[in-house]
C-alpha cells in the first residue's frame, strides 16, 4: 500500500500540469463551496465537459479533490449565511449559524477547517487500505443482481433525504428515474419518450441536467431571495478556536469519524446521512442536549468531521463497485465514461495508476484544507463582498458553455434551463434535488443490471434471491422503505 501511495504521490507531484489541476481543485472546491448560491456541484458541473480534454487520471483526480475540499467549503456558507453548500453541510448550519449570530463565526469556521481535515485524512487512509481488497472481493461476488440490489437500497435510502416529506422524497427519486427512461432502452436499443425529437434519442445528457438542477436552480433561488428582500450579507469576524477547546471535543471527533466512514460507504446519500448521524449521535451522547441548535461548537465539529470522513468512504462503492454515493460521485462516473472507462473492480486491474493518483490526491487535498483552508477562508470572506448580481451572470454564462460544449447542441442548453426552472419549482415545493439527480444517474444503471440479472437467472426469482448479498440488500432496502412508510403515516412534526 505504501509503495503504491508513494507512486501515486510521485505521479501527482511529478507533473506540473497535474499539480496545477490539483491546486485548482483544492482552491476551486473551497471557493465554490464557500460562495453562497453556488457549490462544489456547480463548479463540478461546469468543469465536467472540459475534463474530456484532460488525461483520465487528471479528470478523476480533479473531481475527487473537489469533493474533499468542496465538502469543507460548503460548511463556510452554512456557518456564515445559513446556506448549506450541499445537503451534507445542512447540520453544520444548525449550530454554526447561531454561532455566527453570536459573533463566533471565526471559531465555528476554524473548527470546521480542523475537523474537516481530520475526518478527511482518517477516511482517506482507511479508503486506501480497504478499497482494493473490496474491489477484488467484488469481482468474485458482485454481479448484475447485486448491483441492482445496491441501486435499489441506495435509492430507498436516498428517498428520505432533502425533501419536505417522505412522499416528496420518493417522488423526487421517481422523477429522476422517469427522466432516465428518456432515450434508448438499455437492452433492445428501442427509442423511448423522444417525442419526435431526434436529439432526444440519446437521452437526457447528465451534464445539462445536473447544471440545471443544481447551478441554475440555485441562481433562481437566490434571485427570489433578492426579489423578496431576504438576501442578506452577514457581518464576518475571524477568531479561530483554541487548541484546548478542540482537544476537549476529541471523543466527538472520533465518534464522528466512525459514523462518517460507515455511513459514507452506503451508495446514494453517504455523506449527507453521515453528517446528520454524526450530529445526531453528538446530541444523543451529550449531557447538555438543550444547548444544541443554539450555537454549540460540538455540533459543528461532529457534523463536519462526519461529512468529510464520508468522502473517502464514498469512493469505495464508486471505485470498487462502480456505484456513485452522491451527486458529485455520480458526476465522477460521467468523467470515467468520457474516457471510455467504467468505474468498478476492473479499474483496479486496468488503471491502477489512476486509482493511486486519486487516493494520493484525496489524502493531500484533506491535508491542504488545514493549510490552505485557513488562508483561503480569509480571502473568501473578502470575496463574499462581491455582490451576487455580478456573480450570477458569470455562473449562468459558464453553465451555458458547459451544457453546450458536451455535444454541441443548443437543445442541451434548453434542457439545462428547463431543468433549472423545474428544479427551482420543485425546491420551492419541498422536493429533493439530490434525490432527482440520483434517480437520474442510477436509473439507467439499475434498469440495465436488473435486465441482465433477470436474464442471468432465466427470470427465476427464487434463484435471484438465493444470492445472499442480493437478498440482504433487497431486504435492507425494503426495511428502509418500510420504515419510511411507517414515518409517512406518522403524525407530522418539525423535521430534524
Amino acid at each position, binding site marked *: 500500500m505504501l509503495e503504491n501511495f508513494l507512486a501515486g504521490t510521485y505521479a501527482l507531484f511529478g507533473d506540473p500540469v497535474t499539480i496545477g489541476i490539483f491546486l485548482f481543485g483544492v482552491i476551486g472546491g473551497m471557493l465554490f463551496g464557500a460562495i453562497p448560491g453556488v457549490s462544489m456541484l456547480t463548479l463540478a458541473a461546469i468543469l465536467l465537459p472540459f475534463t474530456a480534454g484532460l488525461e483520465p487520471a487528471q479528470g478523476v483526480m480533479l473531481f475527487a479533490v473537489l469533493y474533499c475540499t468542496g465538502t469543507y467549503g460548503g460548511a463556510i456558507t452554512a456557518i456564515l449565511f445559513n446556506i448549506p453548500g450541499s445537503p451534507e453541510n445542512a447540520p453544520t448550519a*444548525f449550530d454554526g449559524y447561531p454561532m455566527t449570530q453570536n459573533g463566533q463565526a471565526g471559531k465555528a469556521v476554524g473548527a470546521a477547517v480542523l475537523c474537516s481535515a481530520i475526518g478527511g485524512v482518517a477516511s482517506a487512509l482507511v479508503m486506501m487500505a480497504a478499497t482494493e481488497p473490496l474491489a477484488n472481493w467484488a469481482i468474485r461476488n458482485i454481479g448484475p443482481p447485486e448491483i441492482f440490489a445496491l441501486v435499489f437500497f441506495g435509492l430507498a435510502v436516498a428517498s428520505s433525504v432533502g425533501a419536505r416529506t417522505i412522499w416528496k422524497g420518493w417522488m423526487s427519486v421517481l422523477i429522476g428515474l422517469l427522466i432516465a427512461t428518456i432515450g434508448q432502452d438499455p437492452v433492445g436499443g428501442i427509442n423511448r419518450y423522444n417525442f419526435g425529437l431526434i436529439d432526444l434519442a440519446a437521452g437526457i445528457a447528465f451534464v445539462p441536467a445536473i447544471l440545471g438542477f443544481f447551478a441554475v436552480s440555485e441562481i433562481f433561488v437566490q434571485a427570489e431571495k433578492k426579489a423578496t428582500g431576504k438576501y442578506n450579507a452577514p457581518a464576518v469576524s475571524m477568531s479561530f478556536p483554541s487548541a484546548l477547546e478542540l482537544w476537549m471535543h476529541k471523543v466527538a471527533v472520533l465518534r464522528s469519524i466512525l459514523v462518517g466512514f460507515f455511513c459514507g460507504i452506503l451508495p446514494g446519500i453517504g455523506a449527507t446521512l453521515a453528517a446528520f448521524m454524526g450530529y445526531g449521535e453528538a446530541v444523543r451522547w451529550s449531557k447538555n442536549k438543550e444547548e444544541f441548535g443554539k450555537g454549540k461548537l460540538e455540533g459543528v465539529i461532529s457534523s463536519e468531521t462526519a461529512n468529510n470522513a464520508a468522502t473517502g468512504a464514498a469512493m469505495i462503492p464508486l471505485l470498487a463497485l462502480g456505484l456513485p454515493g452522491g451527486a458529485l460521485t455520480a458526476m465522477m462516473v460521467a468523467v470515467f465514461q468520457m474516457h471510455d472507462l467504467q468505474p468498478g473492480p476492473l479499474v483496479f486491474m486496468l488503471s491502477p495508476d489512476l486509482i493511486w493518483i486519486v487516493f494520493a490526491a484525496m489524502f493531500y487535498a484533506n491535508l491542504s484544507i488545514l493549510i490552505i483552508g485557513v488562508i483561503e477562508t480569509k480571502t473568501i470572506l473578502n470575496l463574499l463582498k462581491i455582490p451576487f448580481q455580478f456573480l450570477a451572470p458569470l455562473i449562468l454564462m459558464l453553465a451555458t458553455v458547459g451544457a453546450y460544449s458536451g455535444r454541441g447542441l443548443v437543445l442541451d442548453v434548453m434542457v439545462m434551463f428547463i431543468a433549472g*426552472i423545474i428544479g427551482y419549482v420543485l425546491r420551492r415545493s419541498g422536493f429533493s434535488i439530490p434525490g432527482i439527480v440520483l434517480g437520474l444517474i442510477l436509473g439507467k444503471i439499475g434498469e440495465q443490471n436488473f435486465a441482465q440479472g433477470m436474464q442471468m437467472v432465466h427470470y427465476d426469482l427464487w434463484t435471484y434471491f438465493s444470492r445472499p448479498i442480493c437478498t440482504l440488500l433487497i431486504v435492507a432496502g425494503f426495511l428502509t422503505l418500510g420504515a419510511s412508510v411507517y414515518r409517512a403515516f406518522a403524525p407530522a*412534526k418539525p423535521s430534524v
Partner: protein
Amino acid sequence: MGRLKRGHLIEAAIFVGIVAIFYAYSFEFNQTIEIYIFGATAWPRVVLLLLLLAALGNLYHQYRHGSESQGGILGAAAQQDGESLMADKTALLRMVFVLLTPFVFAFLLRPVGIYFSAPFFIALVMIMFGERRWKAILIMTAIIYVTFIGLFLVVLNAPLPQGNISPFYDFSAWMLKMNTQLRGLW
C-alpha cells in the same frame, strides 16, 4: 377538504397528468425484445405506477397535515418557504422574468449566436438581480464578457453557437476571424 389547499390539488393534478401522458406515450414503443421478456415498457411503467402511488400518498399527507414537514427527513432544513413570493406581486412578476430570460437566451442561441447575445444577457441578469447603476452594469458586463471570450474562445478555442441569421452570424464570423489572427501572432 381537510387541510388541502388549491396548490396541493394543482400539484397532484400535474403529477397525475405527467403519469397519464407518459403512460399513453409508452404504447409508442411497446415492442417486444427477443432477449428480454419484459420489453422496453415494463421499467418505465413500473416507475409511472410508483410515481402515481407516491403522488396520491402525497395528496393524502397534504389532506391530513397540509404543507408541514415530517420528522426524520434528512436535509429538509435547507428547504425554503415560498409563501412570501406569492404574496408579493412585484416580486412574483420579477421572478417570472428571471425564469423566462435564460430560456429566451437559450432559444436565441441558434439564430443569434452566443457572441452577440451574451453581453445583453449578462446585463439583463444584473438588472434582474436588482442592479440599477448603469456604470456598474456596463463595466461588469465588459469584464465578464471579455473574461468569457478570453477563456473559451482564445484559450480553450471551444466551439460555441455562432447563429445562422445575418448580421449576427457575420458578427460571430468576425469574432472568430479576430481570434484566428490573434492566435497567428503567437
